[in-house]
């Protein structure tokens, strides 16, 4: 072992140019892998975040009878207590209403929320002009509605329910959720505001949740359905966004494909260069065998070479890949200062790429290692 290692080091050192070349080859492979992987992961995270990051990811509703949920606070409490991966759970009371203003009327969705928790889901306060409603009868409207209906902070709005109920509500703030449709149709008030307006009494229309790991939504939803919801319906974002998911999947698959092909080309490169070294070093191998080195030891020389090239290439590649990523996120910026390409640096993924490169290099070395073990010293001795 020790001797094979020493000889491997000397062989690598004696062919320094070649060694550096292979190491750089591996490094480029690894860095491309890391860069592409981080890019795809970053894009996916951003896409997922912008699509469902500020939405309910699991929603419980009642699709039977009156569509209302009794005892919602107990259910809320149970979910909060029993599922660690649920980050926020919040009951809402929603209903359609008409906003009547001068001659025009606008159909809106009046949503009664518990702002303390719901803000965690919708991030309302991130871009809020004015204040959250402090008491019943106070509401927030979205930026689109404000523009369209020319409403200002402090205005009193007349709302009509489907059952003919009329109530005036005061606008205490303007929100911007980043989605035009919601900014136009949502009017947000406290839970009691909506419950009273729609005569829901002490019931809610849905329970909304946001999760630590958005991709666990389907399994968690199934658990909640089985353990808590009874006759209620539990929906999750994955079922409702199948096309987004298949897009993400396609992206992941193509990313893996690129990575696999990069590694295959690295493997072939290493194998062929190492195969050449066996020929170059056949004289030395012949001498060593004449002196009685065992075939296994002779093979080990090349396995060690592959291993060391892999390690050197992996280290170099990680540095290069991180450097490339850093350069991209630092210098390629949008006018607002955010990076053009969002990168997600995942240490686990980088470690995996590096480990993969080392394994691949070692495997690549097995081909020349086999050849070296077959080499017969007499060929070398006889031919000078």
């Amino acid at each position, binding site marked *: *072992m*020790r*001797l094979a290692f*020493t*000889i491997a080091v*000397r*062989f690598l*050192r*004696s062919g320094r140019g070649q060694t550096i070349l292979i190491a750089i080859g591996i490094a480029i492979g690894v860095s491309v892998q890391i860069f592409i992987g981080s890019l795809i992961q970053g894009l996916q995270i951003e896409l997922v975040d912008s699509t469902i990051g500020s939405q309910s990811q699991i929603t419980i509703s009642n699709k039977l009878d009156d569509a209302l949920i009794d005892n919602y606070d107990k259910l809320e409490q149970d979910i909060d207590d029993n599922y660690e991966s649920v980050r926020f759970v919040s009951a809402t009371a929603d209903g359609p209403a008409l906003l009547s203003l001068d001659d025009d009327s606008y159909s809106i969705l009046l949503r009664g929320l518990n702002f303390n928790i719901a803000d965690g889901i919708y991030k309302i306060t991130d871009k809020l002009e004015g204040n959250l409603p402090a008491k019943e009868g106070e509401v927030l409207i979205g930026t689109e509605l404000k523009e369209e209906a020319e409403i200002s902070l402090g205005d009193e709005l007349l709302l009509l329910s489907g059952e003919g109920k009329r109530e005036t509500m005061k606008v205490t703030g303007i929100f911007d959720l980043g989605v035009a449709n919601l900014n136009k149709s949502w009017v947000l008030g406290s839970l009691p505001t909506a419950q009273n307006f729609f005569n829901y009494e002490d019931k809610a229309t849905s329970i909304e949740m946001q999760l630590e790991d958005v991709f666990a939504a389907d399994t968690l939803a199934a658990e909640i359905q089985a353990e808590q919801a009874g006759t209620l319906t539990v929906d999750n974002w994955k079922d409702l966004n199948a096309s987004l998911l298949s897009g993400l999947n396609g992206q992941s698959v193509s990313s893996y494909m690129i990575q696999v092909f990069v590694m295959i080309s690295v493997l072939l490169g290493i194998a062929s260069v190492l195969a050449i070294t066996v020929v170059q070093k056949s*004289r*030395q191998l*012949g*001498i*060593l*065998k*004449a*002196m*009685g*080195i*065992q*075939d296994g*030891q002779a093979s080990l020389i090349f396995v060690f070479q592959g291993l060391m090239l892999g390690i050197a290439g992996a280290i170099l590649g990680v540095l290069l890949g991180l450097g490339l990523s850093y350069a991209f996120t630092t210098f390629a910026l949008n006018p607002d200062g955010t990076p053009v390409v969002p990168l997600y640096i995942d240490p686990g993924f980088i470690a995996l790429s590096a480990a993969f490169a080392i394994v691949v290099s070692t495997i690549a070395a097995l081909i020349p290692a086999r050849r070296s073990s077959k080499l017969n*010293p*007499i060929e070398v*001795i*006889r031919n*000078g």
Partner: protein
Amino acid sequence: MANVIELKKINKIYGSGQFQTHVLHDIDLEIEDASFTSIIGQSGSGKSTLLNIIGTLDQPSDGEVWINGMRTDQMNKKELATLRNRTLGFIFQFHYLLPEFTAFENVLMPYRIEHGSAPKSAVERANEIMNLVGLEKVKNNPSGKMSGGQQQRTAIARALMNEPKIILADEPTGNLDSDTTEIIYNLMREINQKIGTTFVVITHDRRIAEKADRIIEITDGRIVMDI
């Protein structure tokens, strides 16, 4: 005295069918422990083939090879490697040092092949051998950067490292000048007399051959003279 090498009815045939060449014919040969034998003969007569068979680098087509009391023509590759490492030392015409290592490291190599790493006692022994062959001043030179004579002395030192019973040399002075040839032969003779290592040396040089205990001449794959 005991025989360290015994060949019984050795034949060597290269190729097959109509391209066969019968290189060695029914060679019987016994070589005593601690002797110094030289093999002479015309080019192509089969000297190297014979020596390589003795050295287990080549296999006879037929016949028995006994080295140090062990039959080698039926051993597997692993056993042969071990035998070569412990019992045989080689000196070739083209030096065959490992250019990636210094002269000293080359000398240590047979020891490291056997034991992996070299403890102090092995290093001391290598130093003694380097002194014996007169290389103490250049021992840390890269082996490729030494003169031909120095390289051949390094190869001799290397052959001695594992205290083999037998050293096989194929035209060890083939491409050295006559003064250096003289030095190398005197060195081998000296080692033979001091340590008792058995030497079998192929040479073209009759003058040199005559200094040996025994001269074997080969013509067309047969021993034609043995004195």
